[in-house]
């Protein structure tokens, strides 16, 4: 049984198509993220599920019931807004109890469930505070409790971490995911932050211009992007046009600006032009300058960036293109010892090259 089913949903604003025949099914308590740059249609999609935007065509089903023509209050969805949208004239307990009040829930039962919901998000000690007296993280917890108390079939989250600083964001990520797992509630999450999407999701939908560019698990999306757009959006830095020179025995020889590199990537046709993606963390450093027989390539260090847990080096290859390499900052990391201007030999393992 699916909790949310989006069937070829289209949303047009005049001539602009915000969402272009999108299909997506979410169910079984999974956490699905709509990821994409601003204007890709991810929020419009979420709002269509929430009932705030009416699709131009297509159907929305929640718990196997067609809700396309139903208003938000008839959909049983829990929506957490970007700015939390807490009611400023009600204290925390009344905010959380609002959904039960609308359902004409009896007062004593309501109070009991409010206190349960508040202790679930560890806010029970602040029940009589007003929203304006709460920090960003606390407001978010209240918004979550308020959305969850009505026991919705699906939780919809619209960039809920946008207003938090980085440390709190990382913390809330874990907290939200733990809570979501323990409740087993199917969740649709919207973000433009790849890290958020990768760390939290069971599945990610990368969206571009209203369409799903790729749908897959975080590792599939990160390691095997199916297009240049997805690769670039997921933060891959080494993306080149290449010419397929030779295809044999699972190994493909490609040429990037005249430099020959081997790739172990299926689906290449000899003579065709493709996009090569080389993952920075897979580039190896040879100890000395390359000998004639080795697969190593001569390069010079153009710049070095110290990022704490990792060290990133930009390399200028003799063939005339630059490459970013990244290593974990350990005692043995070669990048730690490299200086700008130094000549090095790098090896690009065929497994590290992906052809798109």
């Amino acid at each position, binding site marked *: 049984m699916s909790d949310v089913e989006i069937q070829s949903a289209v949303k047009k604003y005049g001539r602009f198509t915000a969402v272009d025949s999108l299909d997506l099914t979410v169910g079984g308590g999974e956490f699905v993220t709509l990821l994409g740059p601003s204007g890709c249609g991810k929020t419009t999609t979420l709002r269509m599920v*929430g*009932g*705030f935007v009416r699709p131009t065509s297509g159907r929305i089903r929640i718990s196997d019931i067609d809700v396309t023509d139903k*208003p*938000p*209050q008839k*959909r049983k*969805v*829990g*929506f957490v*807004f*970007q*700015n939390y*949208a*807490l*009611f*400023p*004239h009600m204290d925390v307990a009344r905010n959380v109890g*609002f*959904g039960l009040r*609308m*359902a004409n829930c009896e007062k004593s039962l309501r109070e009991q469930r409010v206190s349960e919901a508040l202790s679930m998000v560890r806010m029970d000690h602040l029940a009589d505070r*007003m929203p*304006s007296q709460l920090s960003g993280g606390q407001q978010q917890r209240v918004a979550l409790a*308020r*959305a969850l108390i*009505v026991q919705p079939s699906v939780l919809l989250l619209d960039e809920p971490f946008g207003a938090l600083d980085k440390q709190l964001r990382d913390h809330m990520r874990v907290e939200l995911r733990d809570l979501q797992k323990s409740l087993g509630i199917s969740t649709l999450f919207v973000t433009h932050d790849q890290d958020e999407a990768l760390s939290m999701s069971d599945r990610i939908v990368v969206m571009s211009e209203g369409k799903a560019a790729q749908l897959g698990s975080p590792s599939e999306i990160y390691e095997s992007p199916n297009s240049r757009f997805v690769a670039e959006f997921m933060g891959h830095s080494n993306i080149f046009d290449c010419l397929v020179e030779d295809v044999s025995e699972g190994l493909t020889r490609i040429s990037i600006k005249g430099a020959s590199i081997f790739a172990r990537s299926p689906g290449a046709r000899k003579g065709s032009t493709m996009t090569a993606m080389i993952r920075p963390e897979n580039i190896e450093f040879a100890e000395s300058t390359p000998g004639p027989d080795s697969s190593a390539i001569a390069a010079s260090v153009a710049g070095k960036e110290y990022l704490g847990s990792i060290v990133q080096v930009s390399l200028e290859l003799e063939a005339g293109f630059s490459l970013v390499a990244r290593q974990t900052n350990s005692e043995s990391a070669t990048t730690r010892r490299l200086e700008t201007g130094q000549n090095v030999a790098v090896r690009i393992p065929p497994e590290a090259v992906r052809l798109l």
Partner: protein
Amino acid sequence: MENEYSSRLGYRLLLAITALVITFLIAPLAILVIQSFTAESYLSFPPPSYGLRWYANVLTSADWQDSAALSLLLACIVTPCSLAIGTMAAFGLNRGPLKGRQALYALMISPMVLPHIVLGLGIFRIALELNISDSMLAFVPAHLTITIPFVIITVGASLQSFDISMEEAAQSLGASRFGAVWHVTLPIIRPGLIAGAIFSFIISFDEFIITFFLATYSRTLPLEMFSTLMFQVKPSIAAVSSLTLAVTAGLTAILMFRGQVAGESGIIK
């Protein structure tokens, strides 16, 4: 220092001008109020003797009582109607289609800038045609034309800063559209509603020109004051004016005090 000196001079100048403006605004009122406490049978300033004679006279006079009652009744009918219609108009202007919104807004608040004589004449013609002149059926809609714009402006301003996602949140929690507005939007824009209501009340209570066109035998308080003035200038006029002033000033004070409280409660309570 040059800079400090010039700014001090500027500050003093500002103070002087402000004092002057306030004096010009307040002085006539102050003189009127002082005169109303005269014990003589004529108006003079300063009064040779003081007493509450004219207040007693006004409060026991049937003419003044009837006209005050009519004005109060009128304002009490106009205020809720004005608030309801104006609030709905403000919602429409805030939520409706963008196209033509500005023009519609300008049209709806235009009674504020139109000469009241023109409005009065127009409404009078209509009232004559409908044969409702000199009745509440004419007075109430006539007053509404000039009070509704104030509600549109005050409620509209509140709606402008209202975050619509709160209404959406209420809806996704099971509230109907009306329920969301009732439980969430209206309480949040309450300062705008209160301001609109008080404006409506004061304007209706003080309205003279349009009512003058419509009334034949009915006397609202401003009409009674006017007809009294036509015949004689007695201290009773000063007493009535002072009482009217007290009502108006009192309501304005509530308005300002409430605004302050609402502003603070957002943070503290």
